[in-house]
């Protein structure tokens, strides 16, 4: 018994369909997970990775079924289990954690009762025992004050705490296999790093096997021993993590790795290499290589036409790859192709300047009294002409509020925002002149809501050109053609409706719409965060190219500090509505760091260095009480000076020209190494 794998999928195929329509979601997938091992399944959206998880749990709905192969758990074929045996398996021996923690938690039940349900349901404990178990589980996932947490409701917890509670729930029955389906998507980077580190510690302590499903290569690198790369439902590469990431033999794996921004790449370096094209329905049906239509190494007749088998990689025993060209591929290097490096630019004049900018929301409190929420306070920032200023922060840091003030979608309550000699901090969009609106444009975050689903792409662009430039109909048509060309979309896209476009294409149209105004400043609020990594790279490159070509001044808002490293000339870090560090990118990404910057940098999983596991920082309770005094980061800071940081406003240190850090530490005391976690 002991030497057979805990879970094995043998030539697994899964179909979805209704009536005559059938689609293969997973084809001929074989992998196994040994006891205590962490296996990662990686791929873009639509590659079938979540389907695998559902098949293992036998949760495929009425429209899905296993059409071939078998899944064995501890030697037993899952398909042979009765409903009763299945119930005993789920939760008790295999537990699953989904992407959105709120959908796994019952909003009307306290956390404690939800945790106790598991042992009570499986009849392994009485009420007292269950309570004890629940408390221990909460303590084990490192949640503060488990006793108090038992009586809390899910909405009273932060996103990271919710995900920890879900993991506690999954672990409470001591399952031998834990399936994590994108568990950290939607969480802030520091929280993500902490959750991953927690899972890693738990599995080492308990010997739990983990199936980790993610599109995030960095996250996979943090946690997994072995990894399988899935494309169009087929396994294209599999092997030990260091072999797959260190010596990827499939062009798709290489593409994925090269589209991830990492801290090693700044904006002067080579561009990210996106994978061209997207997963098409046709390639799912292809007999040969499904990736052939996007592959730069494709050879007609060799790659297509006949089925391609998984072959072992020469010299690496447990590393297999499904690519006929694999032996002929050159050795892998990071970003082995790319355009010329961008030269250093001289200093430029400021176009937008914020001085003491603040925003306070007045809210009516629960007892009828009025309270106020400070979304932004004391922001001093300068955007230089033709440069990219990146604003980095977690959710709730006030970075979107800043964007909305710049665009006039909300008004500041304090301070000034100077644009061309005019204070626009309190100038609502409706009162801005056409000239001003034309000069300031925005690219929004959500590809699903950025374009009106009732209007064609052409209409959206034409209307913008017409409203802001008052040109004739023929000129507007011509302008639309040019704009589409600018964002590398074919001209016939003007006729299409938004729902006929992929997320990346919609985001391109959104960029074209912002450029239609021929603006001076473009504010991009998390423009790529909702996209797949490979598409993300393409959009980031496009923005960067356009920024240089059109001499745009760009405010780039993101929570992804590695991407910011790639995009920005200047970086500003926001924490809870306050500016904690600002300066030229080179200075911000080099020591000395603000403690928060250091923590963010340490949280970035880097697929280029998959073994750096220990560096994950300890994110303290992110839900410390709202404080208006002292340093906003005090509650989570490892260098906190008791009695000072939480009480007194930190002074501004200036380690270099234009570089400001708000911290009570002296310049010499500031953290200087990224890995130096508390």
């Amino acid at each position, binding site marked *: 018994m002991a030497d057979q794998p805990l879970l094995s999928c043998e030539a697994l195929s899964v179909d979805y369909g209704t009536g005559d329509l059938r689609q293969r979601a997973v084809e001929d997938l074989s992998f196994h997970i040994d006891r205590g091992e962490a296996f990662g399944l990686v791929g873009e959206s639509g590659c079938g990775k979540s389907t695998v998880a559902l098949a293992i749990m036998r949760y495929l709905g009425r429209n899905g079924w296993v059409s071939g192969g078998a899944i064995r758990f501890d030697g037993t074929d899952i398909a042979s289990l009765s409903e009763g045996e299945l119930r005993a398996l789920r939760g008790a021996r295999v537990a699953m954690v989904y992407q959105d923690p709120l959908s796994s938690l019952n909003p009307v039940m306290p956390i404690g009762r939800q945790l106790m349900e598991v042992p009570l349901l499986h009849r392994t404990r009485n009420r007292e025992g269950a309570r004890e178990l629940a408390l221990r589980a909460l303590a084990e996932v490192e949640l503060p004050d488990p006793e108090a947490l038992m009586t809390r409701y899910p909405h009273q917890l932060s996103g990271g705490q919710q995900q920890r509670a879900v993991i506690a729930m999954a672990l409470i029955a001591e399952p031998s296999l834990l399936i994590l389906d994108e568990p950290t998507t939607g969480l802030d980077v520091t929280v993500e790093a902490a959750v991953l580190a927690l899972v890693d510690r738990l599995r080492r302590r308990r010997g739990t096997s983990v199936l980790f499903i993610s599109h995030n290569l960095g996250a996979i690198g943090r946690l997994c021993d072995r990894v399988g790369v899935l494309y169009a439902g087929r396994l294209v590469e599999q092997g030990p993590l260091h072999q797959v990431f260190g010596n990827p033999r499939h062009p798709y794996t290489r593409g994925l790795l090269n589209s991830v921004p990492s801290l090693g790449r700044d904006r002067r370096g080579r561009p990210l290499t996106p994978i061209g094209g*997207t997963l098409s329905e046709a390639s799912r049906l292809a007999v040969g290589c499904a990736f052939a239509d996007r592959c730069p190494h494709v050879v007609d007749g060799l790659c297509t036409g006949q089925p391609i088998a998984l072959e072992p990689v020469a010299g690496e025993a447990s590393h297999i790859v499904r690519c006929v060209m694999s032996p002929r591929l050159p050795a892998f290097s990071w970003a082995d192709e790319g355009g010329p490096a961008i030269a250093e630019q001289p200093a430029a004049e400021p176009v937008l300047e914020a001085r003491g900018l603040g925003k306070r929301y007045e809210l009516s409190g629960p007892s009828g009294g009025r309270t106020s929420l400070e979304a932004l306070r004391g922001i001093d920032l300068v955007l230089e002409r033709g440069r990219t200023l990146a604003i980095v922060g977690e959710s709730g840091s006030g970075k979107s509020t800043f964007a909305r003030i710049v665009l006039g979608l909300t008004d500041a309550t304090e301070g000034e925002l100077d644009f061309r000699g005019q204070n626009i901090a309190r100038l609502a969009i409706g009162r801005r002149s056409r000239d001003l609106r034309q000069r300031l444009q925005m690219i929004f975050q*959500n590809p699903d809501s950025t374009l*009106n689903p*009732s209007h064609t792409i052409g209409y959206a662009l034409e209307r*913008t050109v017409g409203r802001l430039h008052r040109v004739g109909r023929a000129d507007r048509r011509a302008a639309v053609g040019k704009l589409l060309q600018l964002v590398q979309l074919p001209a016939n896209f003007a006729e*299409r409706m938004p729902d006929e476009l992929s997320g990346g*294409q919609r985001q391109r149209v959104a960029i074209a719409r912002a450029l239609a105004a021929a603006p001076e400043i473009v504010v991009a609020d998390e423009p790529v965060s909702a996209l797949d990594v490979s598409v993300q790279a*393409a959009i980031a490159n496009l923005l960067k190219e356009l920024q240089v070509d059109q001499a745009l001044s760009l405010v780039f808002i993101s929570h992804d500090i590695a991407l910011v490293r790639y995009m920005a000339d200047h970086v500003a870090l926001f924490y809870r509505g306050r500016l904690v560090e600002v300066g030229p990118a080179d200075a911000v990404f080099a020591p000395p760091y603000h403690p928060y910057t250091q923590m963010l940098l340490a949280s970035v999983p880097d697929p280029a260095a998959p073994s750096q596991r220990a560096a994950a920082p300890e994110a303290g309770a992110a839900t410390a009480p709202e404080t208006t005094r002292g340093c906003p980061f005090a509650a989570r800071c490892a260098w906190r000076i008791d009695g000072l940081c939480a009480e007194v406003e930190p002074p501004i240190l200036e380690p270099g020209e234009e570089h400001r850090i708000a911290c009570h530490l002296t310049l010499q005391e500031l953290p200087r190494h990224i890995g130096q976690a508390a």
Partner: protein
Amino acid sequence: MTDIADIVPIAPPTPARGLRVLRLTTAGYVGVGIIAFWVAAALLAPVLPMAAPNASDLGALANPLPSAAHWLGVDLSGRDILSRIVWGARTVLTVAPIAVAGATIAGAMLGLIAGYRRGTLDSVLSRISDVILSFPVIILYMIILTRFGASALNIVLVITVTKAPIIYRLVRAMTLELREREYVAAAQMRGESGLYIMLVEILPNARGPIIVDVCLRLGYTTIAIGVLGFLGIGLPPPTPDWGGMVRETYGMISLYPHMAIIPCVAISTLVIGFNLLAVGLRRKARHG
């Protein structure tokens, strides 16, 4: 670096794009069939070989039950029931759509304004709609129609006033949600007027639920018109009116049940038709 970005080969755009919302489920098609039957009857009423709706055949009164001469029998005045049902369809299918259209236009416009502008205007409009909705409609109908007289115009007005708040609430709620969409902010940034944003950016995206609700309202309005006729405050006699037909004959229900039941069946089928259409549309609206 000119990778042709993430291009998905997809089918060319469908020409009948505006009609997409009209693809229905089976239930929806049954509803359409029933409604089409009544619309055809109403349209063809003048050319169908039937007796005039108000002509009395006193000879038939001896045996008012269905016969070769009068397929559905005659009523207490010797008028042909089939003819009155067909002409009655004309009445209901004129009054109901006009009234519902009035309610929809008024409710949708006010809902858009309240949801988009918010503030005091929204509070005032919402309280007014709450007051109207909290009033027992039948009492409201009776007060207004007995005070101002029962005419087709007054019936349309009273139904408009009582149904508009329902559409208002729906549209207001949708507007509150849609106004936060990024494309609305984009429209504001290019300097569109409030009216343009409401009518061109927001309203088209609320059309699915509005169309579904209109179908439901048509059903309820058919019932309301029947009720008004039954209470004697509907269209004045001798206009053929389904509710009125029940009123005139329900006293004889134990003797000649067909006189009252046939118009009831007519009302029911039309209401079911509208409801099935609403269900069919709603399913499609939800699942795309």
